[in-house]
């Protein structure tokens, strides 16, 4: 039954596309259409297609700015063999995937809860929605520095709270330890991104007709049963969209890492994007960096594929 879920969009696109020309106006329309699409397509090709090809080319050449003698010479697969045998690459890949799985799982659970709260009709719901959206809309630099302040060992709210209630952990230098750093990164990331997921899920909730719940209630279903048997299955399309978006964003996480920990302590919070940044702009090795970039692109495609496939309706 997988075909039924993929067919409608494809069919819809074909409806608006009749390659065999019709009247003169239709042909003129199509010519104008290509002209109007061109600026958007060309500028996006310039900033994505061009870097992709350039990275591919660089990854097979010596392109280190500090090594002018060998510049532009063919290097075979040496950049790739260096990459795959690099323990830094393997460990940053492991960390990135680990962070992606944990953060997306955590954020999805919280976002479902938040969406359920925002879905209820109550006075001032618009204001609450706006309040929730502000963390999403502020720059990542703001959310990262804000949580860095919150986790500050002497002036942070977390420290203050732990101190007030005499809990263990007061005066923890959160960003000095590997796991405490990841905890701070996770909180900062979730605070900014849960609202986005929740808004997508909220739109999904609004598509579920009320009478389905009404019928379930009359049949004696508990709140949990109707959530488990009605809400979750019908929410699946929205969940897929939210998950693909978030999984890719989490996989490519960079700003928060750069600002909160700089990949540290040591390299224990260095993710793939950070590793790539380092290769490009610190080591100025665009051949090796290109190989990392190509692997980033390939892995992003794999993740998008896994997410969409895993969540396809099974019946």
């Amino acid at each position, binding site marked *: 039954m997988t075909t039924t879920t993929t067919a409608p969009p494809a069919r819809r696109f074909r409806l608006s596309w009749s390659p065999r020309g019709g009247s003169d106006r239709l042909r003129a329309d199509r010519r104008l259409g290509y002209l109007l699409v061109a600026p958007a397509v060309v500028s996006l090709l310039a900033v994505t297609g061009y870097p992709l090809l350039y990275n591919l080319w660089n990854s097979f050449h010596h392109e280190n700015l500090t090594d002018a003698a060998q510049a532009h010479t063919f290097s075979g697969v040496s950049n790739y063999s260096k990459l795959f045998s690099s323990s830094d690459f393997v460990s940053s890949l492991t960390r990135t995937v680990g962070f992606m799985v944990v953060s997306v799982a955590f954020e999805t659970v919280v976002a479902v*809860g938040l969406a359920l709260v925002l879905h209820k009709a109550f006075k001032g719901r618009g204001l609450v929605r706006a309040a929730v959206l502000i963390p999403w809309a*502020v720059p990542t630099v703001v959310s990262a520095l804000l949580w860095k302040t919150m986790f500050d060992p002497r002036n942070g709210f977390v420290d203050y709270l732990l101190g007030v209630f005499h809990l263990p952990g007061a005066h923890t230098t959160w960003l000095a330890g590997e796991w405490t750093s990841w905890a701070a990164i996770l909180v900062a990331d979730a605070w900014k991104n849960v609202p986005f997921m929740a808004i997508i899920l909220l739109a999904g909730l609004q598509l579920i007709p009320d009478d389905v719940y009404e019928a379930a209630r009359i049949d004696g279903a508990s709140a949990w049963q109707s959530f488990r048997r009605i809400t979750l299955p019908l929410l699946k399309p929205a969940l897929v969209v939210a998950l693909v978006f978030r999984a890719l964003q989490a996989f490519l996480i960079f700003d928060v890492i750069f600002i909160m920990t700089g990949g540290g302590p040591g390299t224990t919070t260095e993710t793939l994007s950070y590793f790539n940044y380092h290769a490009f702009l610190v080591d100025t090795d665009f051949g090796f960096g290109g190989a990392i970039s190509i692997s980033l692109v390939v892995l992003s495609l794999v993740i998008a594929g896994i997410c969409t496939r895993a969540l396809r309706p099974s019946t």
Partner: protein
Amino acid sequence: MPALRRRLRWPGWGRVGFYLAVLVVLAVSLFPFYWIVRTSLETSAEFSAGTTSLLPAHLTFSNYTQAFTQADFARPLLNSAIIALATTAVSVFFGSLAGYAMARLRVPSGPILTFILVAGFFPVLAMVGPLFLLYRHLGFLDSIYPLIVTYLVYTLPIATWLLRNFFAQIPPDLEEAALVDGATRLRALWKVVVPVAVPGVFTAAILSFILAWNDFAFALSFLQTPSKFTAPLAIVNLGQTQNAFQVMYNRIDAAVVIVTLPIALLVLLAQRRIVSGLTAGALR
């Protein structure tokens, strides 16, 4: 019988629980903002002494005045505003043209739309290296203008997608009338379709602005002189040029609050549009 009892007894508690949940949501979303505002109102001496209460000892605006006098924060703010507004204008313009073409003009919108959306997910850090080399070659490094083109990768996919959906919902009869009267397609688009689509254009513009204002990675990679920095980059730079042993968050947070204000205002004024834009962009 148990079900009946539950319905008789629980609505009150359910309602209390629900409003408690709303309170928690509000607190988690907004309290961190209070904390940076509070920190930004402390003097450096108070900040160094450590935090002992929820309220600031007394209010000082010196961090804000210092941000503009010593750190010259007005310049990066202006840079960010120029780039974000220009990126927004270009994305809405290109997005309208492409969106209209795909909604009406029988171009193969399937493959084009797929490409545009996939481009929106392209790993940003994978673009940094090649674009750095290109901009270096062209003498574009350390200039804010190439960033306008670069930021299109954030804004153009969602703007095009939104506007295409918006145009597709407008009844074609409107332009047909204009076309029959002898208007050209472009004239019909500009005079008939765009005015009707103003809400959609507005939504695309707001989201584009937020996304362009958000960037850090490209600015970090391509800009070198502080007077060219965007606001987010300038804030991070403010933290890194300080004493490494104790970061003075009271100074930094003043700049953080300044950057947050316009965005917070935008969200409060246009919450409905942002929500509809995000969801139309995701679920269609």
